């Protein structure tokens, strides 16, 4: 079990004006599964490579259990990285791929054989050892790549977009596998992804990185309920941002006076609420009358574009609730106070 501490980690590539990663600080508790989330080019893979020792940071430190590892060679860091495109060695059998790390450590061949077969059982592919990687499906290759990483019992496991290349049904299978193996072996795990859904389903905690800077580091639900700023909220699918002022538990803006939950930020700011928290019909407090601008049927959900005065509101509702709604209709909506959040 290893506590990972990333301190003011910065990378400026030669010839670049702005840093690829700007003073990233993160504390990752022992055995935790953390996601580095951000769009492509935001610096998340750079971060992983610096932790793995494949890239030299410009400044800052990476500490495992309070010991700096920056001077250690990649092969001595106890960090294993699993790449997005698996990168199984094509000229080796699957078993040789899995046993690669042990062979490099000059482990006894019979011991390698035993542990490889254990590992293959663990990733639920006991019979593929003699095959070539090219004979496996994408999902199977992913599991072999994971087995190849876990067999060396790393202190820290780094995963690069672990679910992105998988079909929807394989994603959940893989998610469960990663989570169960990670918990069982207690390996501190960091993964990077550009897909907020992937981060949310897999991680204990999520660090959102935008333009090389960390915006928020929190449990997944906080990004929906309490985003630190508009960019963060937008990254997680937030659409509603209404300027105004928060005074004594009330938000005063173009929608009139809305009641906020306890503990809201005071002063000028933006009111935000999730599209899925907009309720159709009357409720306790914050009742409004809205005009339907558009109805977009999405299968399991319906997206409503609403207007209250000049203000646009995006809502996502159960299709049954809005059957028969059409543009131009005037409908009652309400915004439950506990779902409103003020960004200062």
């Amino acid at each position: 079990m290893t506590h990972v501490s990333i301190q003011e980690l910065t990378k400026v590539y030669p010839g670049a004006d702005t840093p690829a990663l700007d003073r990233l600080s993160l504390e990752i508790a022992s055995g935790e599964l953390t996601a580095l989330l951000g769009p492509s080019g935001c610096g998340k893979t750079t971060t992983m490579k610096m932790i793995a020792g494949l890239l030299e940071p410009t400044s800052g430190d990476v500490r495992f259990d309070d010991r700096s590892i920056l001077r250690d060679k990649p092969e001595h860091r106890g960090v294993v990285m699993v790449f997005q495109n698996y990168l199984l060695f094509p000229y080796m059998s699957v078993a040789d791929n899995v046993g690669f790390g042990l062979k490099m450590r000059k482990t006894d061949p019979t011991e390698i054989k035993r542990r490889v077969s254990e590992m293959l059982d663990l990733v639920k592919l006991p019979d593929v050892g003699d095959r070539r990687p090219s004979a496996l499906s994408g999902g199977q290759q992913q599991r072999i790549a994971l087995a190849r990483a876990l067999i060396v019992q790393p202190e820290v496991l780094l995963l690069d977009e672990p679910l992105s290349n998988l079909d929807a049904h394989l994603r959940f299978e893989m998610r469960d596998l990663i989570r169960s193996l990670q918990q069982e072996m207690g390996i501190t795990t960091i993964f990077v992804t550009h897909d907020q859904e992937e981060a949310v389903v897999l991680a204990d905690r999520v660090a959102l990185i935008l333009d090389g800077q960390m915006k928020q580091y929190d449990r997944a639900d906080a990004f929906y309920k309490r985003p630190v700023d508009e960019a963060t909220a937008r990254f997680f699918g937030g659409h509603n941002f209404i300027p105004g002022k928060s005074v004594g538990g009330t938000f005063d803006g173009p929608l009139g006076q809305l009641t906020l939950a306890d503990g809201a930020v005071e002063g000028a700011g933006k009111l935000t609420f999730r599209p899925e928290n907009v309720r159709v019909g009357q409720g306790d407090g914050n009742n409004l009358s809205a005009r339907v601008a558009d109805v977009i049927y999405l299968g399991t959900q319906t997206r409503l574009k609403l207007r209250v005065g000049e203000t646009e509101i995006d809502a996502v509702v159960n299709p049954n609730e809005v059957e028969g709604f059409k543009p131009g209709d005037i409908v009652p909506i309400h915004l439950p106070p506990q779902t409103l959040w003020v960004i200062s």
Partner: protein
Amino acid sequence: MSDRLKIILLLLPAMSVIVLLFFGGLLIGLMRSFNYMPVIGLTEPNLQAYINVFTDEEFYWSFLLSFHISFTSTLISCILAVGAALLLRRAFIGRAVINFLFQLNLTVPHLVGAIGILYLFSQSGVFARLAAEVDLIQRPADFPAMVFDPFAIGIILQYVWKEVPFIGVIVLANMQALGENYESVARSLGASKWQTFRHVLLPLIFPGILSASVIVFAFTFGAYEIPALLGANYPAALPVLAYRSYTDVDLAARPEAMALAIIIAILSAVMIFIYIRYSRKRVRS
């Protein structure tokens, strides 16, 4: 028109060149090597030319020399080319210039290179005179024999000079297409730099090295001009031996020249076959 027919028609021009010129030449050579030349009344094929070749001691020395030239120059070229490619794939200031210089002599003909070697390394060459000038040796003639020498050092130098960029360009393209991620994976799994090279990069670029080195080996084994210019008189490389027989005043030596040419072709094919089988097994184990 069916696809099959289209493919055959499209291939026809290229195939006819190969079939007529290459196989045609080979067939005529084969017939003559069997002493079969109906034009001058030789209509009874026999193995006399081959018997003459195989009973002559010089043939065996020539074979050893040719093998030594090809093997040594291919091996040295491969090692230097891989080393150069490893350096050239890194980003550094002036890489474009170095890269250009590295590939420059791809355009220089072998013959020109050979004359360069002659000027530089012979016992009356630039290096010999320089060494005498700074009193490393007494007279230029004391300079170690590197041209017309029994170990074919001059020939090998010339081939290495010419083939390193050739193999290097292929290997470099190969490395650049692979990227560095496989090596990163290996490093993070605990492989040292050397292990990463030996167990990951080398097997991955091996197909490129293999095809390039087969071309170099076959070329150097069958090439005539460099051993003729820079080689010793005895033993001479196999192609030189073949050419000598061909231009012999005694017309009866011609079938022997043809037999030698056929033997060179067969030996190349056999050695390349053994090389491919053996090296693939070794590198990927």
